[in-house]
């Protein structure tokens, strides 16, 4: 279990997260949606302990950070590190040694090449592979489907469902609603740092419709397309 209680985050006077209260249970996939700047990434960083905050974050396995696989939206890679070394670095950091990396290269990545030469999608697949091989209890996946090809997105969806089956906690953010409705059990909607609502699977369709109406509004008419 991961429980967030009254989490607030400010940068000077700018409050970017306001009183967030969420609970994530084992064997469930939770989605976080919101526009750019809604506070999703900041929330993830706070839960991971990469950002300071007020409020509380509890977890059933302590310390949370040592059991968390964190996929950042835009993973950073050192200029002369190969794919295999990147995976090894992340596994070594969690004291996971002697892993057969080649056998577990499910996305068929060129692991002996420098990661910096990879395409955006390949970089994301490499980062996902690494956090999977760390054998974490919790996963925070910030935009895992972004820039990844359709085939790999199918594999990624199956991986998330497998992690769910293994009783892990998975928190995902995505701008592609269908990827969330395929995998999530609940979705939390954030807007300008506020937790607007939490929706269960049966109400995803309504949420999607609501989001569409709010997001589109009369913007298309304003364009006066001819």
């Amino acid at each position, binding site marked *: 279990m991961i429980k967030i209680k009254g989490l607030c985050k400010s940068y000077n006077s700018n409050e970017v997260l306001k009183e967030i209260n969420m609970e994530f249970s084992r064997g469930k996939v939770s989605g976080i949606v919101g526009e750019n700047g809604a506070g999703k990434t900041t929330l993830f960083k706070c839960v*991971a*302990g*990469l950002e*300071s905050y007020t409020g509380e974050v509890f977890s059933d396995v302590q*310390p949370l*950070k*040592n*059991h968390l696989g*964190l996929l*950042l939206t835009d*993973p*950073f890679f*050192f*200029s*002369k*590190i*190969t794919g*295999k*070394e*990147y995976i*090894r*670095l*992340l596994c*070594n*950091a*969690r*004291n996971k040694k002697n892993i057969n990396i080649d056998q577990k290269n499910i996305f068929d990545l060129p692991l*002996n*090449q*420098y990661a910096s*030469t990879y395409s955006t999608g390949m970089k994301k697949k490499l980062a996902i592979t690494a956090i999977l091989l760390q054998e974490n209890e919790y996963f925070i996946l910030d935009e895992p489907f972004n820039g990844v090809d359709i085939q790999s997105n199918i594999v990624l969806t199956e991986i998330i469902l497998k992690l769910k089956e293994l009783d892990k906690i998975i928190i995902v953010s995505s701008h592609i609603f269908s990827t969330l409705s395929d995998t999530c059990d609940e979705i939390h909607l954030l807007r300008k740092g506020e937790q607007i609502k939490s929706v269960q699977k049966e109400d995803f369709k309504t949420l999607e419709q609501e989001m569409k109406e709010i997001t589109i509004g009369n913007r298309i008419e304003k364009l006066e397309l001819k």
Partner: protein
Amino acid sequence: MKDYFNLQLVMTKRKVKEAGLNPLLSCLLGLILFVAFSEYIFHRTEFAKYLVILVCFSFQFKLSENRRTDFLLSIFGDKAKNKIRVLENLIICIPFVSILLFKNLFLEAVILFTCSITIALFSFRTSLNLTIPTPFSKNPFEFSTGFRKTFFIFPLAYALTTIAINVDNFNLGIFSMLLISLTTLSYYSKPEEEYYVWIYADTTKSFLKKKIINATKNYIMLTIPILIGLLIFYPIKFDLILLFLLFGILFLWTIVLAKYSAFPDEIHLSVGFIIAFILLFPPLILVVIPYFYTKSINKLKFIFNDKN
């Protein structure tokens, strides 16, 4: 084009300020250091003129990097791009050409000036995508990535040791050891992204211990060929050889800890002064290491969620 150079000036000033320096003062300091260092190398070696030309070219080659020139081309077009590149190279070559002229090396100055303009009209790929094998692959990242960036230093250092033994110049042998030491120190000069510290399932203390042990092990591995050579041919000076090895290790610890004492920011200039001061008074290292260690513990506490 004027806007481009204004922007470059603003960016440079910003970088200098971020390093905790006054732009005007650092410009003056840089000039003094440049003149002093040039005088020093002209005084020390007859190859100084080549070194001046080489250093100037190395800066200019960096500016001629493929992606950079492609970017300039896409923004300014062919003609303006060439003008910008020629101007950039001329700005860079001014101090170097001045030094050569000051030393009455007119031919070399003309060659450097002409080449600077010519180089500006070409672009180069400055980085190889070829994966260079490294002995540090099992335990990335500082030494594995650093080794690849500086791989040419090692055959050079080992060759210097061989020459030192052949011409019976012990000091040159020690210099080759210092060369390895300086190279490995550079691997720890910049802080990594916070994520790469956060990933460790460690306490602050065990993290620092791991980093220090790894650095020491890898440094010794790279120094061993020189060490063995010198110990075999200069057994009588074994105490001096081991003293330099020990100092190299302690200096490496200092840099590792200095990096994390400022984390996630870059090593501040004041820390740079402390490190430079150690070179003048080496015993100081025994005070500086615990100081940086305590500072590192405090800096990393948050990221490791350490309560004590």
